Each structure stands twice: as structure tokens, then as C-alpha cells.
């Protein structure tokens, strides 16, 4: 059973007697086992919460939807839409937009010619000044095909068939079909249920669908209205990245502006905070002589890391948005990035200090011992060896800044912006705020868009971190 049975027990009076020792060892082992289970349980708990988090996002990103076609495709032609030729599809467009030349023109401007709103305004202004802006000029400018017989006509005064022909010339069959579906049939997602609800609770969804159909029939006063069968829809689509926000149609809402805003802000933040933070850390670790001033600064930095972000927001509002208005132009990406840099500066400094401190002193002595100056020692030995740790801190800081919302609410991010940020001095929105705006929309489908947006946010964050990890590994490899 134990070692002591073979040997003659020879404990002195100072230690507990043999019997007690045996009891103790069992108790001590039980204790060890207990804590082992506690630690295991906390790991499991952490993993379970993470999985639940992912599940709650996934179930909203992939949902079952029912679609209601505002125009029944069966009424448009005597064949199913997919079987129509290019000419027949064009005929459908002409019939549908017969009395709405203006609407069709807008579609041509946006979808075919890709004219920006300022371009369109310019055309209208010139026409108002009695100038003729020809089809040839605009389409030629955009490298688009145009019907030869209308080349010299004014681009805003074409007839419906002419606009339709314009569309047909520039779109292949598939694109034309998509155009008809989107702008003639105009499908609308009228119901959306999370993945698990559909799989587990079909009955209540069927009841919901009947209810939705009833409502639609009542509103449109048309008893024949039917919605499509529920089908799986992934809300994580390409257009989420390339389109701008549309708070009226969830299926068209994109997050391009927010993604660009976030990336631009985080780049400036890192450019400002990393050199400043590492510089401060180098000073505090390598140069500071430990005077009361430096101790005061150190204490402040340690405490600043825990200050709630909203307070940094108020600071940023006062300092960057108001006082430094001349430089930052008010509520711009620059103001936000500088505020964010302040927010993550303590995190970067503390981690960099930790990393610098962990560089063995023997390395510094080796460097000094052959006649290096302080700067040569710091630059050639301390920094390269501290780099992996510094980058770890930077990863933490980026993650914090990327997901930060409160600060940006205060320093003035806007959620309904559809114009891409053009530089540090433009208005902007960021992903977390845009997601918040989506969730607060009344239409339930926006929650699906928000979930897809969250996945996107996570994906971008992970790729940023992966980049930093790769960089870190390159440094650690070089250090060995």
C-alpha cells in the first residue's frame, strides 16, 4: 500500500505519526483531484459558452425564408420565366414599365451605366440648361453598348422600349433574367425562421405562414396570393461585402461602408498607437531611472487600461472632435482613430513593457559588454526579442478596438451612411455600430443580416489577428 510498510517507520516526534500521515496523503490527493475537476469544468464551461455563441449566430445567418412575389411571374408570359429568350424578357420589361419611363431610366442609370448620384445630377443640370446630353456621350464614356438609332438622342428622354433595348444590349441572358426577377417580379422575403426552429418546430412555422398569407391577401385585396415554400437562405452573401447599407430591404443590405470604415479606422489607430506605445514602453523599461515621476506615470498607465471606454469617448469628443476641430474636421475617421488609439495605448504599453522585461538581462549585458550603446542594445537585441510579446499585446489591442462601440457612439459615427469613406477626414460608420443599427430595425429579417454581419466581423478580426500571429511567428523564429 505504501512505501512505509517495507521500511521501518522512523518518523520523529516533529511529524504526525504514521497513521495520520497515511490519512493525510489520501486527503491531499483527494484535494488535488477535486481541483483538477474544477479546472476541467471551467474549461468545459468556456467551450460550451463559445459553442452556444457560435450557434446563436449561425442559426440566424442561415435561416428558412418564405418569399412573396409582388408580381406573379406566371402572369408575365405564357412560359415560365427561365425559358424566355432575351427578346421575350425585354418584352416583359417593356410591358411592365410601360407607363413608368422614369423608373426604368433610374434603373438604367444605376444598374446598367453605374452612374453615381453626382453624375446623374450633372446630367440633369445640363439638360435643364437646354443642353442635350446624348446617349453616345454617356454610354461611350462608360464603355457600354447603346442602340445605334438612339445615339444622338438625349439620354434622359428615351422611350421605354429604347431603355429596354439599352438594357438588353448590355446584359447577357442570365443577367437579363436576374434583372427581370429583381425589378419586375420583385420577390420580397416576408418570413424568416432560424435554422433550428424550422428543423424542430415545423408546425408553428406552417401556422405562421398561413397567417402571413392571410395578411398579404387582406392588404392587397387578392385572395389568390401565395407565398413560396420555405427554403434555406444563407444571409452571408457576397453582396454583404460589396453593397452599401439599405435599411428598407434586408435582402439588399450590405456592409461595405462599415467594413471600409472599420478597416480604415483600425489602420490609423495602429499606426498611431503602436509606435507611441512601444516607444513609451522602451522609455519606461530601458531609460527610466525609477524616479517619482516615472512611478506616477506607470501607475497611471496601469489604471488607464481599466477605464471604461465611454470615458475615452467623452475625452475624444472634447479633445479631437471639438478642440482639435481644425485638424480632425470634427466627427471624422481621424477623430475616431485617435480616440481609439488613446483607448488601446495603455494595453499596448503594458504588454510591450512585459515583453521588454522578459528579454533576459544577459542579452543586454552581452551587448553592452562589447561596446554597444544603449540605442544599439535596444534596437538590435531588446526589441527583436521582445517583438513576439509586443505583437501579442497588439493583437489584444486590435481585437478590443475593432469591436469597440461605445467610444464611437460618442465621437460621432453615423449608421445610415451609404458613402464610402474616402480618407481619414470623411464621415464613417463601423461594423459593430452598423450591426447594432440592423438589430434595432423592426423587420425581423434584419436580425439575419446582423448575424451575417457578426460572422463577417469575426472573420475580419480573425484575419487581422492571423496576420499578426504570422508576423509574430516570423519574429520568434528569427529570435532562436
Amino acid at each position: 500500500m505504501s512505501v512505509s510498510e517495507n521500511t521501518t517507520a522512523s518518523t520523529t516526534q516533529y511529524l504526525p505519526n504514521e497513521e495520520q500521515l497515511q490519512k493525510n496523503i489520501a486527503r491531499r490527493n483527494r484535494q488535488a483531484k477535486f481541483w483538477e475537476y474544477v479546472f476541467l469544468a471551467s474549461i468545459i464551461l468556456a467551450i460550451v459558452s463559445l459553442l452556444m455563441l457560435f450557434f446563436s449566430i449561425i442559426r440566424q445567418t442561415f435561416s428558412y425564408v418564405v418569399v412573396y412575389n409582388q408580381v406573379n411571374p406566371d402572369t408575365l408570359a405564357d412560359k415560365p420565366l427561365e425559358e424566355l429568350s432575351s427578346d421575350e424578357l425585354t418584352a416583359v420589361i417593356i410591358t411592365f414599365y410601360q407607363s413608368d419611363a422614369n423608373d426604368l431610366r433610374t434603373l438604367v442609370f444605376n444598374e446598367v451605366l453605374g452612374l453615381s448620384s453626382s453624375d446623374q445630377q450633372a446630367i440633369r443640370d445640363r439638360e435643364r440648361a437646354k443642353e442635350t446630353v446624348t446617349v453616345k456621350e454617356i454610354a461611350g464614356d462608360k464603355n457600354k453598348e447603346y442602340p445605334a438609332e438612339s445615339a444622338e438622342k438625349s439620354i434622359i428622354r428615351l422611350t421605354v422600349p429604347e431603355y429596354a433595348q439599352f438594357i438588353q444590349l448590355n446584359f447577357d441572358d442570365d443577367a437579363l433574367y436576374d434583372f427581370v426577377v429583381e425589378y419586375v417580379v420583385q420577390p420580397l422575403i416576408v418570413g424568416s425562421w432560424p435554422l433550428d426552429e424550422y428543423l424542430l418546430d415545423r408546425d408553428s412555422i406552417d401556422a405562421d405562414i398561413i397567417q402571413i398569407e392571410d395578411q398579404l391577401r387582406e392588404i392587397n385585396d387578392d385572395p389568390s396570393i401565395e407565398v413560396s415554400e420555405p427554403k434555406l437562405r444563407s444571409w452571408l452573401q457576397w453582396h454583404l461585402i460589396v453593397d452599401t447599407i439599405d435599411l428598407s430591404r434586408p435582402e439588399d443590405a450590405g456592409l461595405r461602408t462599415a467594413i471600409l470604415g472599420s478597416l480604415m479606422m483600425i489602420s490609423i489607430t495602429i499606426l498611431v498607437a503602436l509606435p507611441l506605445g512601444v516607444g513609451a514602453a522602451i522609455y519606461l523599461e530601458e531609460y527610466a531611472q525609477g524616479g517619482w515621476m516615472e512611478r506616477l506615470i506607470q501607475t497611471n498607465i496601469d489604471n488607464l487600461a481599466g477605464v471604461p471606454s465611454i470615458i475615452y469617448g467623452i475625452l475624444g469628443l472634447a479633445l479631437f472632435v471639438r478642440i482639435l476641430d481644425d485638424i480632425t474636421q470634427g466627427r471624422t475617421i481621424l477623430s475616431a482613430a485617435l480616440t481609439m488609439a488613446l483607448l488601446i495605448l495603455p494595453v499596448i504599453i503594458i504588454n510591450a513593457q512585459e515583453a521588454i522585461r522578459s528579454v533576459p538581462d544577459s542579452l543586454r549585458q552581452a551587448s553592452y559588454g562589447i561596446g554597444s550603446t544603449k540605442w544599439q542594445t535596444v534596437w538590435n537585441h531588446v526589441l527583436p526579442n521582445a517583438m513576439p510579446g509586443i505583437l501579442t499585446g497588439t493583437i489584444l489591442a486590435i481585437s478590443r478596438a475593432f469591436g469597440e462601440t461605445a467610444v464611437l457612439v460618442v465621437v460621432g459615427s453615423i449608421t445610415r451612411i451609404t458613402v464610402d469613406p474616402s480618407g481619414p477626414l470623411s464621415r464613417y460608420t463601423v461594423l459593430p455600430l452598423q450591426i447594432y443599427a440592423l438589430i434595432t430595425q423592426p423587420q425581423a429579417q434584419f436580425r439575419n443580416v446582423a448575424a451575417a454581419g457578426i460572422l463577417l466581423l469575426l472573420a475580419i478580426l480573425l484575419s487581422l489577428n492571423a496576420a499578426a500571429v504570422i508576423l509574430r511567428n516570423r519574429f520568434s523564429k528569427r529570435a532562436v
Partner: protein
Amino acid sequence: MTSNGKYALEARNLNIFYGNFRAVRNVSMQIESNKITALIGPSGCGKSTLLRSFNRMNDLVLGSHAEGEILYRGQNLYGNNVDPVEVRRRIGMVFQKPNPFPKSIFDNIAYGPRILGQRNKKILAEIVEKSLRQAALWDDVKDNLKKSGLALSGGQQQRLCIARTLAVEPEIILMDEPCSALDPIATLRIEELMRELKENYTIIIVTHNMQQAARVSDYTAFMLMGQERAGELIEFNQTDRIFTQPADSRTEDYITGRFG
């Protein structure tokens, strides 16, 4: 060339302080050129502190300062117009634990000449070879100079560190217990190397190992913690005299193993 001729270094009434604490009291000694001088004594007697004051490595310790003089070529190393960076190039140092840079063997040695401004690759390669030969490491590593210095064995690492010191052409080499982290065979090789090096360099070595002091050194200084725990120089003489007929009874007690 030198105003103090056969002496490479001369300490005069040297006191070294850490803050208010006096670590070394009133040390005066003359270190002869091209000889090996050993500093021995029990732990805490200030021998490492004394050694580190010879190339002003102690300056790196916050709150340390020295009073008195250390003369090198007639100039006080603690004088106002002396740059410690230059001092450390001329008076190199090898540490207790081998501390190669986490770089290749080549870069470890070329680093010193590089920071001094030597950029010519051909010359750097020559320096590397010469230094490695002097440190008796060339034959071991000549085929893989690109290998990391940390991949070498402990004894080889220490010889690499010695080669690195030699590469900046110092006059004096300080060794702070250079063999305490090495096995007996590696220790013997370092000792052999020291005997070769003293042809061209002056060596001062701190050691806990009295046999080592007896084996390699020409002069031995015995230090002891005195009043207020400050280290004092008890006796300084030729090594065979210290070990055969010490003048001070405390020296005798120490070397015969009666204490410490």
C-alpha cells in the same frame, strides 16, 4: 603608449556603492599586463562588483556609483570625459552563463565590428575566422557558421562568447566565473584557452574554484567581506605565494578550506 607601463589597470582607493550601501571598500591594486589575475573570495565579498567596475558595467545598475580611481593607460576610467561605451570595447567581458545572441554564429561575432562601423563583408569574414581561431572554436564550427549560436554546447557557447569579445580587439578581458556553468572537460578547455590568450591580452577572472585560480592565474587577489558588509581586498600577490605562504591568516583559512 602607456603611462603606467607594465600595468594594464590600476585601482586606487576604489570604493563602489549601490545607493548608500558600500559594496567595495578602499581597494588598491595593480594588474599586470599579459598576465592572468584571479579574484577569489567567499560569496558576497564584492569580487564580481570589483570586476564589473573595471569596464564600468556597474553603471548599468540603477543607483550605483564609484569613488576613487581606476587608471587605464594613465586615464581614470571614472573620469568625466570617459565614455563607458568605449571603455567596454577596450575592456571586454565574458559572463558567468554563456550568453550568445540568438543569432547565427557568424552574426554573433560580426555584431561587434558591425556596430563599430565595419560593413565590409570580406573583412567581417576575416574577423570572424580570426576570432574563432583564437577562441579555439574554428574547427568545430567552420562548416556551419550560419547555425544559431544557441545550438552549440555550453562550452562551445562560452568560447563563442570569448570569440565575440575578441572580435572588437580589446586589451583586457574580464571573466566573471566563466566556467561555473560548464562541465569539467569544457572547463579545462577554457582554462587552456586563457593561457593561450594571455600572450596578447590581459585577463582578470573571478572564480569560486580555488583549484582553477591556482591552475591558471599568475596573480591572485583574495577578498573578504569586512565591516558593514563591504568587500575588502585582504591580500594580493603572485598566485604561488598566496597558495603556499599567504601573509594573512584569513587567506590561509580560506584557501585551506577552513571557512567560506
